[in-house]
């Protein structure tokens, strides 16, 4: 489903397409309440989706299903930064603070996390 969401998103929006064409990163998403996940291997314009978490990931996002869906609802604001001050953004920020959303590898890969967020965003 996440692969389909990205495909539809980049098809709808040239800016997201540009992000997709520039992104080279391996991103894991683990949905904690169903104990399942995927690895998204972005290779500058192509995406390989694999079940489970594959090694050598740059970033790994761990959250419950609802939070994973809400990540796609983050608005993108000035300079392509995710908006954390509206209702959805505050919810995501609260999950981060509570440890219910964990983004491993974020510190060294903030630009990658922001790009992935933009590619995922349906807003």
């Amino acid at each position, binding site marked *: 489903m996440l692969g389909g969401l990205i495909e539809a*998103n980049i098809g709808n929006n040239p800016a997201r397409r540009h992000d997709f064409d520039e992104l080279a990163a391996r991103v894991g998403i683990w949905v904690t309440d169903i104990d399942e996940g995927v690895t998204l291997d972005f290779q500058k314009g192509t995406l390989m989706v694999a079940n489970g978490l594959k090694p050598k990931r740059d970033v790994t996002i761990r959250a419950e*299903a*609802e939070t994973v*869906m809400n990540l796609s609802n983050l608005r993108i604001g000035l300079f392509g930064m995710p908006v954390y001050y509206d209702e959805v953004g505050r919810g995501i920020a609260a999950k981060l603070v509570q440890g219910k959303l964990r983004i491993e590898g974020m510190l060294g890969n903030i630009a990658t996390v922001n790009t992935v967020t933009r590619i995922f965003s349906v807003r």
Partner: protein
Amino acid sequence: MAVNAFSDEWARQFKDEVNRSDVYKSAAKGWKWTVGLVVEAEPDKNFPESKGVVMDLFDGSARDIKVGSAGDAQKCDFVITAPYSRWKQVATKELDATKGILQGKLKLKGDLPTIVRYTKASQEMTECTTRVPVEWPDEK
């Protein structure tokens, strides 16, 4: 009083629940697409024929919800398909619909970015189904 699952009376009560929900009204503002639920047959569960639920939803309200054939539901803008017992799990809160879709237990067809934008509305709609007291054919 409990109604038969996926009957006309169930559809009427479900529609009333949706239209009573302020959460749905607010979360589904701007929604203008039809949604079809395909309930696949499971003869061993006393549900011998597939059915379709056609939901005409518009801007935070349910204009119409009808039970018909699976083919009717498949013509909708968004179609969610699952066997009878999965839908029962959703309606009895055993299975969260968001998780079910992520796991592929409920198959979703339609524009994904649009439906993801309305995640909260979808969740509330699921809540509405749980408020309708139902008599399940496999429990008769």
